[in-house]
């Protein structure tokens, strides 16, 4: 009887919850000056999340000035409107609000999360940061020194955090996507205060701005308030130049970053890949989920679960407007560097040769659909998603049609995507941070090796 009751409860609830993933409704308003507002109410908790996106980002850093966008983003918080750096920080913290900034490849973002009773103040602070940042020379010099020192600290305490900067620089070279996101010690040191102020004038303006706000507020009042705050902002000083497309590299090459005495080797293996508009997105995500996107992925199983070589192994495909990058990420103790590299490359070869089968696809599909709803839960995540769609010229079908696209994928279409997204084993770029004295010799079998010291103040290596 008890079991029967349990079964009934389960059946009923399964029917009640069987539903497609669908993006919540939101309002999109384009102001006269080009600012795009994205608004949605969400009332479960008394919070408001805001995300402001200024198109541009690290890809717009001037030549030899990598880190400009990152430095500018950090300086937005160091005084704005009538407040100096100290009182600006105090104003947000005093009400328990969070404000942070971030420079991404093709945007600079301001992220704010406040109690709803303080939404007015939040908008005032964000508008001041974007429209009226102080950008004082004094704060600039401090932030510049601090940014350089943070890179030096990471070289000692967290080498894994730097491998992405080496990876982009080695993969994309002088292309804008090769800019290390936080700059290098050398490129940061070259930036002048005057250049930074000019960069702000060139790249900040109403025509570049998206403001996405979700949370516990009245949508009409919020629209009015945001229109007042951002509706009169003039355009940026220069137009946004589209990034040039770039294709994958041929052959193999190795960058060895020497960190003497390093207990482990940290590595990336990959190549240039597809852009944001790649049509087989569902197939791509299915393939990557299976190859290196979850705990039971091929890479984790081979390198960690069965191999005991590492704690972590994964793969990712980052896509931007003009191109993307595909990388395998892992690390292992110095003595097993070759074993781990060989195994990762072997698994990439197998992915191309064997593809995936129906059972694997069904599992990956369930996983992607099962893990998606929580990403819509907090107001700030939802604000982020709306802004992401807008910034990349996508509409709500990107989410709403996704379930159907996952269902439609077959082993054949996924295999096609694999050959378009993942490099062949003969065309690989390998980036490795480790103890060169111990592994230098054995790296030559992977291709021509370029070696630099981790103490070099730059990430770009000119061959």
């Amino acid at each position, binding site marked *: 009887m008890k079991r029967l009751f349990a079964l009934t409860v389960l059946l009923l609830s399964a029917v009640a919850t069987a539903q497609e993933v669908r993006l919540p409704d939101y309002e999109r308003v384009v102001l006269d000056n080009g600012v795009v507002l994205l608004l949605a109410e969400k009332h479960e908790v008394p919070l408001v999340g805001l995300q402001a996106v200024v198109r541009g980002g690290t890809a717009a850093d001037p030549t030899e000035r990598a880190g400009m966008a990152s430095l500018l983003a950090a300086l937005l*918080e160091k005084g704005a409107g009538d407040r100096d750096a100290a009182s600006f920080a105090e104003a947000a*913290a005093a009400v328990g*609000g969070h404000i942070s900034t971030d420079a991404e490849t093709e945007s600079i973002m301001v992220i704010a999360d406040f109690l709803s009773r303080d939404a007015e103040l939040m908008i005032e602070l964000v508008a001041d940061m974007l429209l009226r940042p102080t950008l004082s020379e004094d704060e600039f010099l401090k932030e510049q020194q601090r940014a350089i020192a943070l890179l030096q600290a990471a*070289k000692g*305490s967290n080498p894994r955090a730097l491998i992405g900067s080496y990876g982009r620089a080695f993969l994309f070279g002088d292309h804008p996507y090769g800019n290390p996101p936080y700059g290098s010690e050398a490129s940061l040191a070259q930036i002048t205060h005057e250049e930074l102020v000019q960069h702000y004038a060139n790249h900040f303006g109403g025509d570049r701005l998206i403001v996405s706000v979700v949370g516990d507020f009245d949508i009409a009042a919020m629209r009015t308030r945001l229109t007042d705050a951002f509706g009169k902002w003039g355009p940026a000083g220069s137009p946004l130049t589209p990034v040039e497309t770039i294709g994958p590299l041929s052959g193999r090459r190795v960058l060895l970053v020497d960190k003497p005495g390093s207990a482990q080797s940290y590595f990336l293996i990959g190549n240039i890949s597809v852009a944001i508009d790649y049509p087989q997105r569902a197939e791509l995500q299915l393939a990557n989920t299976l190859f290196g996107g979850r705990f039971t992925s091929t890479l984790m199983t081979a390198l960690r*679960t069965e191999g005991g070589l590492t704690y972590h192994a994964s793969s990712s495909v980052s896509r931007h407007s003009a191109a993307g990058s595909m990388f395998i990420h892992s690390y292992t*103790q110095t003595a097993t560097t070759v074993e781990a590299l060989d195994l990762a490359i072997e698994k990439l070869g197998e992915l191309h040769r064997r593809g995936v089968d129906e059972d694997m696809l069904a599992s990956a599909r*369930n996983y992607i659909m099962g893990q998606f709803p929580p990403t819509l839960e907090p107001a700030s995540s939802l604000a982020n998603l709306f802004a992401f769609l807008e910034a990349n010229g996508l509409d709500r079908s990107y989410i709403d049609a996704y379930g159907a696209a996952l269902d439609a994928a077959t082993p054949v279409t996924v295999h096609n995507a694999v050959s378009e997204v993942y490099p062949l084993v003969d065309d690989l770029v390998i980036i490795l941070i480790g103890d060169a004295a111990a592994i230098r010799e054995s790296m030559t079998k992977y291709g021509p090796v370029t070696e630099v010291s981790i*103490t070099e103040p730059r990430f770009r290596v000119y061959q």
Partner: protein
Amino acid sequence: MSLFSELRRRNVIKVALLYAVASWLVVWIIDHLVDGVGLSPWVSDYMLLLLAIGFPVALIFAWVYEFTPTGLQKAADVDQTQSIVYKTGQKLNAALAVLAVLGVAAVIGEQLLPEFTPPPRETLEEFPLKPVFDVSASAEVPREITSFKLPNGLKVIVWPDHDIPNVALYYFVRAGARNEYPGITGIAHFFEHMMFNGTTSRDQGDFDREMEAAGGANNAYTSKDVTVYMDWFPKSALETVLELEGDRLANLAIDPDVVETERGAVVSERREGVDDSHAGLLHEQMYANAYLAHPYQNPVIGWPSDIANWTQDDLENFYRRFYAPNNITMVFAGDVTPEEIYLLTDQYLSSLKRQHPPEAVTITEPPQRGERRFAIEAADAQTPLLHVAFHAGATSDPETLLLDLLLAIIAEGDSSRLHRALVEEEGLAIRVSGRQSDGFDSGLAYFALTLAPGADIAVAETRLREELGRVVADGVTPSELAKARNLRLAAFWRGLQTINGKASALGNFEVFTGDYENLFAVPARLSAITAEELQAVAAKVFRDDNMTVGILSAPAPETSE
């Protein structure tokens, strides 16, 4: 007459048989009471001991005494012609037959009858903790939250939230570095890895494969106090997840080959977090230096020689002892109802066997007697690190929330005192943080400073001490207090905007403060805190003789004359 014949004549053998069958029945009944109504497992053990002691006594009694029509007499004194031992023997036979029938009936009945499931009831709390807050009338506990305890002692808390068709499951095993000793440090963390590596009916990897195929993801973490397992899954995977969890909690296979592979993964994790990280190394050494006696001195990941050496027996003992239902608290938040969770936990988790509670960790770190210092040289340290720690309280201490606010004022965010002074104004540091490592026992108030390249470490330390001294002497301002309160109030709401945050918060409050309802007292408790209370805590904690200083820097350059 042979001894054996005499034993038979005096009914000693029948008494022995009767005693054995009766004892078996008594133990059977008590075991069922232990599982069924939460009787302490100690009762069963004591009864076994009593029965064992009673056995020879009964036999000797049977040998020495005899029933006669006039009563009990010594067998030696009884006239053999008047003996009625055969009648007594018949009675004993009858009793034996009755007991045997009862026993057989019980065993058969157990197989045939529906499982015995008395209504859930509260039993003795094995881990009594004093509540951190008084649950005042102003604390609004959402009515939809319910909790119950399975008869085997497993505590279950359910917070239904039907916003998205997903569920977050957290379960807290009261096992962490705190429960370890030299030789097995790191075993709680290692065990967290082993929980993903196969059961008697599932191969290594099957747990994750089945969960991910059903749309679920999972993770786990180990702290100095607890090991926490987390599953995030669509509602449709609820039964799959409970079956998987029930299986690994009951039937974990600790395969020696898998143990060896997993050691490799843990060694790699340690190399990344400690050997290749200046900050990680300094942090580990800080706990080793700040604690003389308490096991908080050991790193969660374990000392390298222990990682290399723990044995199969160590692992099996650890599993039996700590992975018992009465040592676990389980929290569900999301698209579920309490009824279905009760039915499913009853189905998949009620067969877990209650165990003796693990031995209590009774040691208290003795008061620190004077400042301690240590210094580490690292050739490639371009930015020196300065870590400073003070002994503070446990989570259940009322002062812990006060110190939390104090640390927010001193070291959290760009408006904090240390950031303003040492990072912005004086350029001595590039990053500061101040955190508290509270748990079941007294933790540390821990300041971590990354200094600017070339900064004078001694000056930075002096400035840190001055800033802390200023808090002790002058206290905090009303606006600082208001800021700290608001930071925590906003954090409270941020934590409750996701099912993941809800499960985590309920579980942590239940385990560390003794009652999940204390979570909802946070807003009222925050508004009652005064600046004087904060100053008093500062004076109590920030004392030189309660302080440990750790420095990591590059060796001084060799000077050439």
